[in-house]
């Protein structure tokens, strides 16, 4: 049987069982929406993690009353390192001004004296500097006399990384559950359709139809259900994203300096094609025992 005939018969099947398939597609779309939503969250968290990881910053806090000679020596040491791109010195006054510029806090804190904010050297590291190397630089610098403390921001990054790993795990488990759910729903829908079209299958088998001829349109219908469900989920997610983007963008930009992004095109394609493939598999598996005439 050629593809055109399979498609024609599948179209007729979809038309005849339209209500049944609409119910199945809407249930499956909700399941796919959950997966797509988690994927979207993971994608944006990854972007934040990447931004933070890539930023390669280090703040070297100076001791109160550190001697200018010691600070100069420290700068020389830092600037002599291959990984260091630039070193900017912030006095207590500069640190206070920056804090007040970038924070939303009101007048109470504006009254704080400059001494509350430690002077520092803001070190910008070359992209791709390894975590181990950053730790080694931090250890070396930390032992110098003018240095009070070194902040590499690894703590934040590690926490975000943990969050991301958890998110990825949840996405994986959810994807597996959704795959099983899609298999079950499509399998049952096709079984119902087969039961309603038993007469048709019997006629075809008695006329000499091969299992492939009988199975083809049902597999196509299952494929379509999976495809349509995933597509509907993606479209609903896109709509929700478009509506909420403004609010999300402001929050994320303030938090991490990144903008919210939708799923990558390859993810969308994988989601829709994955839905179609699971749909095909579900219907093929459910048909095996109904072909004996």
């Amino acid at each position, binding site marked *: 049987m050629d593809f055109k005939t399979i498609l024609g018969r599948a179209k007729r099947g979809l038309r005849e069982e339209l209500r049944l398939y609409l119910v199945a597609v809407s249930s499956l779309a909700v399941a796919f929406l959950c997966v797509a939503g988690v994927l979207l969250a993971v994608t944006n968290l990854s972007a934040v993690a990447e931004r933070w990881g890539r930023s390669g910053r280090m703040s070297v806090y100076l001791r109160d009353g550190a001697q200018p000679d010691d600070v100069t020596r420290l700068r020389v040491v830092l600037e002599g390192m291959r990984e260091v791109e630039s070193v900017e010195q912030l006095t207590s006054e500069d640190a206070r001004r920056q804090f007040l510029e970038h924070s939303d806090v009101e007048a109470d804190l504006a009254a704080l004296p400059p001494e509350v904010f430690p002077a520092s050297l803001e070190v910008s590291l070359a992209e791709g500097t390894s975590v181990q190397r950053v730790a080694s630089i931090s250890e070396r610098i930390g032992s110098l006399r003018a240095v009070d403390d070194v902040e590499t921001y690894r703590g934040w990054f590690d926490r975000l990384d943990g969050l991301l790993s958890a998110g990825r795990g949840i996405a994986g488990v959810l994807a597996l559950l959704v795959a099983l759910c899609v298999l079950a729903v499509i399998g049952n829908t096709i079984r119902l359709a087969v039961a309603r079209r038993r007469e048709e299958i019997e*006629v075809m088998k*008695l*006329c*000499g*139809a091969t299992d492939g001829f009988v199975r083809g349109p049902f597999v196509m219908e299952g494929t379509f259900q999976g495809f349509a469900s995933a597509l509907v989920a993606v479209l609903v997610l896109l709509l929700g994203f478009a509506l909420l983007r403004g609010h999300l963008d402001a929050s994320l930009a303030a938090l991490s300096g990144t903008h919210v992004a939708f799923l990558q095109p390859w993810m969308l394609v994988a989601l829709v094609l994955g839905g179609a493939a699971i749909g095909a598999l579900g219907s093929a598996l459910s048909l095996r025992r109904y072909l004996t005439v």
Partner: protein
Amino acid sequence: MARDPDSKVVRPFAFFRAGVQSDPSAARRPILVFEDVYKYFRRDQPTLRGVNLTIERGEFAFVTGPSGAGKSTLLQLVYRKHTVDTGRILFCGKDVARLKPKSIPYLRRNLGIVFQDFKVVRHWTVYENVAVALEILAMPKRLVRSRVAEALERVGLAGRGSERTENLSGGEQQRVAVARAIVTEPALILADEPTGNLDPHLAIDILTLFEEINATGTTVLFATHDHSLIAKRDHRIIGIDEGRVVEARTGLRSWPGAEERAASDPASGLHAVAG
């Protein structure tokens, strides 16, 4: 009726599996041979016991006997709904019992099967019900259209292809089933009580239709328990009783015990013939 010359182009289908060459000597053999066939559905009570039977090409044969005698089983073994337990069934010289499941569709493409309950898809149109047999053969649409139109004309349903089958009468639905059975021009038609759900007048119409099909050279095996129908024709009769075959060559006149049965059971239909 003038044949579309194109219809010769796609004259079917390798017998067992696509690509397998058919045996030219098969044309000289009987179309169907049963050799000592046994079929058990219960261990202690065979449905068919040692059936030996030969059906020649172009024959029209009634298969008759009481309900439960094994008529339908005999036909079902031919189209491999069931498999023989012992013995052989040779169709065109090939043992159908030895066919692998994948080859069964190719066997069925050489058979036309008609049932008592019509087995038409009621929500399909008449055209779709007949065309399905050709679509299975992947025949081009243009050919399908002409072959279906021709088959519908042969069964007296010309021009009614677009009607939904559920709107037709029982007799018309059975004609649709017959059209589907003949549209592929099979070598053998198996009719399993095709008049069982029809009133006597329509039953005669359908029987006549099968005879017309037989007149074009198609072998017909017509299972029925309706003696009144058999009595009206003088075809070969294959009687089955308790799984055994009792044969008569020339209608009910030579049926074993016909005289006695007609005397004891006037309703059997034997009376008119035997008398």
